[in-house]
């Protein structure tokens, strides 16, 4: 390949090479700053020309799979089309140049979008109030659990030290509970993918601060006993936390508020299709019912019918406080707002309908092609689980091998090895924006890989073959840490 294609930007750097147009031409003196506070050695950066830089990062980008280029059925992640209008409209100069501390009088455009987004999310979730400020799902979880804690504290109910978390939960759930100062207690799942209600009843009690639940669960099924679960937890004085990662599956069909949840977070970067950006940014607004309203994180936006304004600690003295310097990921919220306006109430219902249709169709195809399902007797929600335990045992080709081989066929792998309680699992989430032909092609390739695994397992275990690199040595990465490039 051409020179530089695998080089680091630093390896293209040369002393004395500069790109002067991107900074003022002048080098004024540094006056009035004590010597001892001045930097002595120039930073080691990349000294490259503008074209070298543009070419380097353009080429790098081509080494990524993405929604714009590939089917990306990563379960629990909702990799669907990110409308390009959300990008350009959220990046209009007026929005980009707004200082976060600009006065209300110079912020009515931005604030009106945020207020309307709050209102829409209230309706969609069935909650009484929404704060947009959490920067991602995990921070939304934090806000939610911190509110639960603030609620118990406000009632001087200080015996509630435990949070219940089903074993299928996402890792952020237990990690969040701990960040809020709670102990975590795992609740087992029954063989139908529902929470083991008996087990729940046994551990619930006056020490229970709350239950964190994902519904539909990470197992790709709808928790059917949700009303009973809510009853059990509420009866014990605990509150119900809804992890909104899977809201995509139920938009307009059933609302967390109506299911009995006290607080929820939404992943706007999933359900509301803001782009994932190779790892973020996201946005994790929280919605609450009446009794948690006083504790919502600030800032929020209020509207008096004429003027939009900020809600801060002043107006909400019981708030759990602030979670970021300003108002979280404002630009992501704008994208979600634009998406919501484009979809409207009509489009939102279609989201859950067609994502569910796609998942159940793939589930049906999986059965036809002889794959084992984690829950063959259940409906899929917007995602479902294939387990490759049999193939791993019989052929020695495991889920990771399937995943890597899929890349060779131009498909991103589904989520692998999560949820942890299903062995050799593939969590498949096609989303509503993929077409039938693509789903068919994916399942054909799955069957083909299985055949390959039968014919030549070593070949499959050596995959991928068509990517910029072959399979990477993760063990070495962690053992011989190389986190920062150093010149020789």
């Amino acid at each position, binding site marked *: 390949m051409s020179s530089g294609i695998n080089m680091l930007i630093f390896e293209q750097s040369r002393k004395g090479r500069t790109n002067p147009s991107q900074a003022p031409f002048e080098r004024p003196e540094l006056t009035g700053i004590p010597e*001892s506070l001045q*930097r002595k050695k120039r930073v080691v950066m990349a000294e490259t020309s503008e074209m070298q830089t543009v070419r380097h990062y353009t080429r790098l980008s081509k080494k990524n799979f*993405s929604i714009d280029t590939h089917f990306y059925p990563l379960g629990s992640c909702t990799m669907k089309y990110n409308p390009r209008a959300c990008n350009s409209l959220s990046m209009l100069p*007026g929005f980009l140049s707004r200082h976060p501390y600009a006065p209300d009088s110079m*912020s009515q455009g931005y604030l009106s979008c945020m207020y309307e987004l709050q209102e829409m999310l209230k309706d969609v979730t069935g909650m009484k109030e929404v704060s947009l400020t959490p920067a991602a*799902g995990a921070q939304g979880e934090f806000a939610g659990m911190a509110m639960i804690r603030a609620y118990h504290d406000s009632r001087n109910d200080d015996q509630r030290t435990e949070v219940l978390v089903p074993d299928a939960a996402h890792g952020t759930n237990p990690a969040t509970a701990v960040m809020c100062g709670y102990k975590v207690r795992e609740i087992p799942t029954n063989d139908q993918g529902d929470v083991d209600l008996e087990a729940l009843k046994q551990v619930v009690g006056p020490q229970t601060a709350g239950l964190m639940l994902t519904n539909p669960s990470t197992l790709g099924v709808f928790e059917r006993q949700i009303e009973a679960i809510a009853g059990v937890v509420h009866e014990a004085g605990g509150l119900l936390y809804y992890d909104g990662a899977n809201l995509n599956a139920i938009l307009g069909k059933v609302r967390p508020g109506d299911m009995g949840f006290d607080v929820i977070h939404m992943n706007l*970067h999933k359900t509301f299709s803001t782009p994932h950006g190779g790892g973020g940014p996201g946005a994790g607004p929280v919605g609450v019912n009446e009794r948690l309203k006083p504790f919502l994180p600030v800032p929020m936006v209020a509207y008096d019918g004429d003027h939009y304004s900020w809600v801060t600690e002043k107006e909400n003295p019981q708030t*759990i406080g602030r979670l*970021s*310097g300003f108002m979280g990921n404002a630009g992501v919220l704008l994208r979600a707002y634009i998406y919501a306006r484009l979809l409207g109430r009509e489009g939102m219902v279609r989201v859950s309908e067609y994502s569910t249709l796609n998942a159940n169709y793939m589930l049906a195809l999986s059965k036809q092609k002889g794959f084992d399902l984690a829950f063959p007797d259940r409906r899929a929600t917007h995602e479902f689980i294939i387990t490759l335990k049999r193939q791993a045992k019989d052929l020695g080709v495991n889920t990771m091998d399937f995943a890597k081989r899929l890349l060779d066929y131009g498909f991103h792998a589904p989520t692998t090895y999560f949820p942890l309680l299903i062995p050799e699992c593939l969590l498949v989430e096609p989303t509503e924006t993929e077409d039938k032909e693509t789903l068919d092609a994916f399942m054909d390739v799955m069957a083909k890989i299985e055949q390959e695994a039968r014919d030549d397992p070593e070949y499959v275990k050596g995959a991928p073959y068509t990517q910029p690199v072959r399979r990477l040595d993760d063990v070495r990465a962690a053992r011989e840490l190389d986190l920062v490039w150093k010149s020789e």
Partner: protein
Amino acid sequence: MPYIPHTEEEVGQMLDTIGVDSIEDLFDEIPASLRHKSLDGVPTQATEMEVTRLMHERAALDGQPLCFMGAGAYDHHIPAAVWQITTRGEFYTAYTPYQAEASQGTLQLLYEYQTMMANLNALDVSNASLYDGASAMAEAILMAVRANRKSKSKRILMPANVHPAYRKTAEAIVTNQGITFELIDYDHTSGCIDPASLPTEPGDFAALIIPQPNFFGTLEDVNVLTDWAHKHKALVVGVVNPIALAVLVPPGEWGESGADIACGEGQPLGIPMSSGGPFYGFMCCKQAYVRQMPGRIIGRTVDLDGKPGYTLTLQAREQHIRRSKATSNICTNQGLMITASTIHMALLGAEGLERVALSCHDNTRKLIEKLTSIDGVEVVFSGAYFHEVLIRLSAPVPEVMRALYAQNILPGYAIQDDYPELENCLLVCATEMRTDSDIETYASHLQRVMGK
């Protein structure tokens, strides 16, 4: 249907394959009593044309004032190339790089970012982002408490001149874990922490926070403070402005042995002010503490053929592996912002970053000279500054601000709500974006307003 490719015929085929009559049937596991009927609170669908017009109108409403405001978000030049590359679909619409082989673009970029950020801070390692500067400081505090093996304390010494929003954020995030803050007052003449005022017997504490520059824009004596904290077996967490680091002594070189952790707001490096987000928090630390660091970390390794490649590493720190024992609950971070920032830093290079920093400093000097030549305007603190300065007006600040807003000028940040003792004070900033004529415009309007 908008964004949905299904034709009626295909839907029919798919339902047949599934063996149900309608899409509605697929929701039959949801208890009927819970089913929701309609979303009246959501407006009806709109075409892209309609929404485009709406958003243009909304964006135009907010003006584009001449900005002399900083206070944590800074109006810097961003090369056009930065966002044109960043928004390429391959970066913009990829997920967290879980399948490393299909994500080498993002992964190599993050490795380059870690290198740049570690170099800028003169520390050994960097993570691949946290949410923003404020939450990064909160995470740094949690990390310091975990990492400091010499202290059992959960006490943190927190200067009062750390950004108020950062302090509020840290409080909201860490106090649930029993961590407490002890405020250190600033010296009311210099605006900085007076090292002489620090107790000789401070008791056990986990970490000292050192802002550089502090919220007032003045420069702390980071060397003395660092050595003092280390003497008392505490860790030092620097909260720094990354542009300033081009010309200021970097955290890794503070005092005898350097700060242990540095964190801050990455926004000045290629991220638009955009109402305060998405920005990103950066965090660097000494090698010894890397396993206590929160957030994603990318490592270089080799593939089956021995060819170098990049992958997420030290995942055992993270929630998806370690669950309740993770260093943090962070999962989705601010990846795309790092993409932008890395391209930004590569485009500027060391020389460019220095010139930006020097120009910010120089423009602020010019601004202050101009403003303080107006009757009734004076500098509050005597400390050296980087690119923000607190001035005191002899007139009521809210009124002055309103008058300047009317001229489409953002005159600065009124500090009074956060520091009641600093009445009628305004924190002003002039980045490299402000020209002499901008400064003149501000000064002449202020003069007029103050003269009334």
